[in-house]
Structure formats: C-alpha cells, structure tokens
C-alpha cells in the first residue's frame, strides 16, 4: 500500500514539474488548429489591426506588432475547406527595434490569420480577422449621403 502511494505521489510530482515544460514546448509546425490557445497574452502587442479585425478593399494587408527581442513569430492562415490553419510565413525573430511587420495576401471575403509568438516566457496565439470587400462596395459607401431628420422640431 505504501509503495503504491509512493508511486502515485512520484508520478504526480514528475507530472507537475514537467507539464509546464511540455506546454511551453508545444510549438506548431506546418499546421495549427483554429482554436489553438497560447499560455500568455503579453509576449507581443498587435499594433495593426489594433482591434484584431479590419476591412479593406486592398489585395494585401500589413500586420504589425511589437515585442521583446528574440521573440519568434510565425503566421498561419485559416483554410475553411480543411478547418486547419496553414503556415504561410516561417519563423522571424524580433530584433533590437522590437518591431515586426509582415504583408499577407487577401482572398475575397473573410481571411483569418493566426499570429504565433514564442519566447522564453511562453507562447501567444492571436487571431486576426481581415474582411476583403469589393472596391465597388467601398465606392458606394463613400457616395452615400445620410439625411438626419430633426424629431425635436
């Protein structure tokens, strides 16, 4: 009985020591699930788009961020057909400036990008949604005139 108890305690001890290390070492390769989560949200700060979503009629979009030096960053793009995110930009390391920027190509309608950042303190996964709208739609919106009725009159 004592031996069994000791064995269980040892396993629990080993697991509690190695689990953080295991979770820290859980990097993603060529694919990543859409619901992947990191263990930190302070490794990088996404500057563009600041609200983590944007709309544009352009063919490309520049994602920018800042973070500590030597932070590794990868970019994944969601493929609705397979339900997985695929690596589109391989590892780049943030330098002394702290700046990171990358240009992504947009498909029509919704584009979901996952920004994966990792350093010695942990890993962070940030989802960014970019909607591509047609230029004709943008032009129509620009030409809309809104008339406000004065209900207090």
């Amino acid at each position, binding site marked *: 009985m004592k031996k069994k108890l000791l064995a269980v305690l040892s396993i629990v001890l080993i697991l509690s020591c190695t689990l953080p290390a295991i979770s820290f070492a859980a990097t993603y390769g060529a694919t990543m699930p859409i619901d992947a989560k990191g263990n930190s949200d302070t490794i990088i700060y996404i500057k563009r788009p600041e609200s983590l979503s944007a709309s544009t009629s352009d063919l*490309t979009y520049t994602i920018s961020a800042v973070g500590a030096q030597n932070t590794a960053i990868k970019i994944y793009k969601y493929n609705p057909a397979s339900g997985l995110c695929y690596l589109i930009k391989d590892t780049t390391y943030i330098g002394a400036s702290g*700046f990171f920027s990358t240009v992504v190509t947009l498909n029509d309608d919704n584009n979901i990008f996952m920004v994966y950042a990792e350093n010695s303190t942990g890993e962070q996964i940030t989802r960014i949604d970019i909607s591509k709208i047609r230029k004709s739609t943008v032009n129509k919106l620009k030409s809309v005139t809104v008339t406000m009725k004065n209900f207090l009159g």
Partner: protein
Amino acid sequence: MNKERIKSFVLVCLVMINFILAAKILTDKKLWPYGYNFFVSLEKSDILKVFTYSQDKKAAKTHIATPEQIIVNTGDQTSRIAINPDNEIFSEISLAADEILNIALNSDSKNIFFSTKSEWVSELNGRSLCLNYDIPYETTLFGKFFDADASALSEYLPSLSRIIISENGSVYFEDFNSGNFYKAQTSLNPKKLVSIIDKTKNMYSDNQTIINYSVDLKFDETFGSQKAALSPTVLVYSTPVNMPLVMAINPLLSPNNTLNFETIDKILSIFDINANTVRRYPEVNGTMVFVENDGILKIHPDGVIRYQSTDSRGFSISSGNSYAETLIGIAEFAHSLNAASSSDTDIYLSSEIFENSQKVTFDYRASGVGVEMDFDKYKNAITAEITSDGFLTSYTHVLRNYIPGSTLLQTPEYIKTLDEAIEKYSMDMNNIEIQKIYISYTDSGSFTPKSAKWKTKVKSIVIDENE
C-alpha cells in the same frame, strides 16, 4: 566660254567655303582665340543672359528644390509607389506638382488651416502625392524658387520639410520643427494630378514591394519598454530593394590616366581665367595651381577643384538681387563645372538652407539616390561659401561621374537595418526617434564598384540622466 563658266563656278565655291568656315569659327568655341574676344564677352553679356536666364533658372531649380522622392499614394498599399528622380515619370509628376505648389505657396492666411493628424494621415492613405525633400527649407525662400510669395504660410511654419498634395487640390505642408501639418486650400482643378496618379499606378502595376508609412503601422508610438519609434511619415518597405552597382569615375583623367587638359581649360574659362595669361605652377603632388589677382584655383589630379578668393569680394556668381538668385547661381555654376568635365551626374542641395546662410553644400545622385561623400576631409561633393550679395569666397568641388552598371544588388532587409541602428544607439539612449531611413551610396574615394545601403537618421537623442 566654257573657261568663263568654270572660273565662275570655282569663284562661287570659294566664296561659299569662306562663309562656311567663318560660321564655324564664330559658333565653335574651340576655335575662338584666347585673350580678349568679342564673342566671349557677348556670351557673358547681360543682354544674352536675358534669353538664356529662364532656361538656366529651370535647370538650376531642379538641383535646389526638387524632392528626393515622390510617393504616389493610390489609395491602396499594394499599388503605392516610390518614384525617384531617375524614374522616367518623375519630371512629369514634378511639373504637375509645381503648378499646384505655386498656387498653394501664394495662399492668404484665410486659406491656411491647421490639419489634424487624422486628416493628413487620411490623405496619405487616399489618392495623393507625398513630396519628400532631402533637407528642410525656410518657407519664404522655398516660395521664391516657385516665384511665389509664401510670407503668409511662413507665419504658420517657418520651415517646411514635406508636402502632401491631395487629389482634391488641398496641399499640406509639414512644419519641420513641430511635425504638424498645415493645409492650404486651392481651388485648382487637379485633373492633371488625378491622371498622373492613375498613369503611375498602371505603369508600375507589377511592383512587388509594399510601402507603408510608419503611422499606418503605429510604429510612431512606443509601447511598454520599447525604446524606439519612427517618425510618422517614415516609409517602411516590405522587401529589400534592388539597386545597381555604380562605378565612380574621375572626369579630370583621360582613359590613359593622364590629366585631361581640354577639361581643365574648360574649367578655367568657367572661373573666367585666361589659360594663356594666368600664372600657373605645379605642386609636388601634381596639383596644378592657377593664380589670379583675385583668387587662387587649385586642380588636384584626384578630381578636386578648390578655389579661394584672395580679395574681400570674391568671385561673382549672380547679380546679388536676392539670396534665392545667389543659390540658383551656385547651382548653375556647379552644374556648368560638371558639364565641362562631361559629367551628367545629377546634384542636389544637401545643406539646410535659411535666408543668408553663408555655407551651402551639394551632393551627387546616382541611380536616383544620394551619394554620401566620405573621402579624406570631404564630406560633401560641393561646398561653397558665399556672401549675401552673390559673391563666392571659397569653393570646393569633387568632380565625379557615377555610372550605374547592369548588376543589381539587393539591399539588406529593411527591419534588420532598423534593428542594427537601434542596437547601435540603445546602449546610450533611452528614447530613440528615427527621423529617416533611406538608401544611398557612399563614396570613400576609391574607384571600386559601390553598392547601395540603407542609412538611418536619428531625430532626437534623449539621455535620461536619472536612469
């Protein structure tokens, strides 16, 4: 009878040859004798200058008030284009911009407004031209280069460094000191501008490099412990840029490495020195020294011309009616020395200019970007010291011709360059603002091929003594 006809024919031929030879002597400067010469005097006369002045002024203005780069903002980041002076469409865009600038610079106070950041950022992201200049200009002086009275505008911004021309005809001027923008409303119908933006977009539709402004990427704001920020209008390139290797040539030397005396004679005439009568002697290092009553001219075999006046007045380069005219006179003078040495390399004004600045510098452009001189004690290609009434008291000119080769080299990655610059300064500084990141060549005096590199200019250096 036949004999008479032959005689008449020969006589007519001789008379015609006489006229042809006389015309050749009158028009070909190489055949003009040295010393007093009626035609030399006529060439330099004020009467003839009236006809040639406007062309010279135009040519000189291109060296003084031309932007180093024009960014054509098309409304999309994908099609935004950076146009350098060597691009074929640069002149067309520049001319269209000049027309609008002439009106905007003449604006009355009632048509000048402070522009909020969101407004001018919106223009940068819309359809517009952004004119980036090498140096800041005193506003009133800048106006004179466009024949405009910019006194009202100068009350809002004494010196300007960047101009945005919107598709709707509004012109935004950046105050060099504060970074604020002021808008001058014009009523000009900018049809030409609209068509040029579209034309440029179509011409460069296969361009792969994405250009963003620092303000778009929010790199102009620091976050947390971040030390560095970029000025809002600094351009961020997504890919390296391909630039040709350039060869530097000393135009004073012939292909067999001997001094080209024909070039030297042309240089002497530009300094109004009579090659036949001037006192001359060689120095030990091969420098040729020419001594006139009012100055000494030295021409070094390594391509350096140095002039020093020996009287209090100096060498006249303009009528001295205004400082702007004096600057144009120097640009014209430098341009003529380059032309005399068969150098077609472009030059640009590289020193900050304020009314009555006594020292003026110019540098060369190769393949549309600047060449920074770092050759012995010469930090600029051309240095001139002038008086306010249009006299040159001292002049140094490193004669060079830069020939772009066919080999293209990629510059390093943009962000890597930024990282290196920050690393260099971060040891001693707590807050770093990068004012400018640009491509240029460096001429250290050697004649090996030169590659273009990214360079950074730091705006503010702040050391917090409490940390």
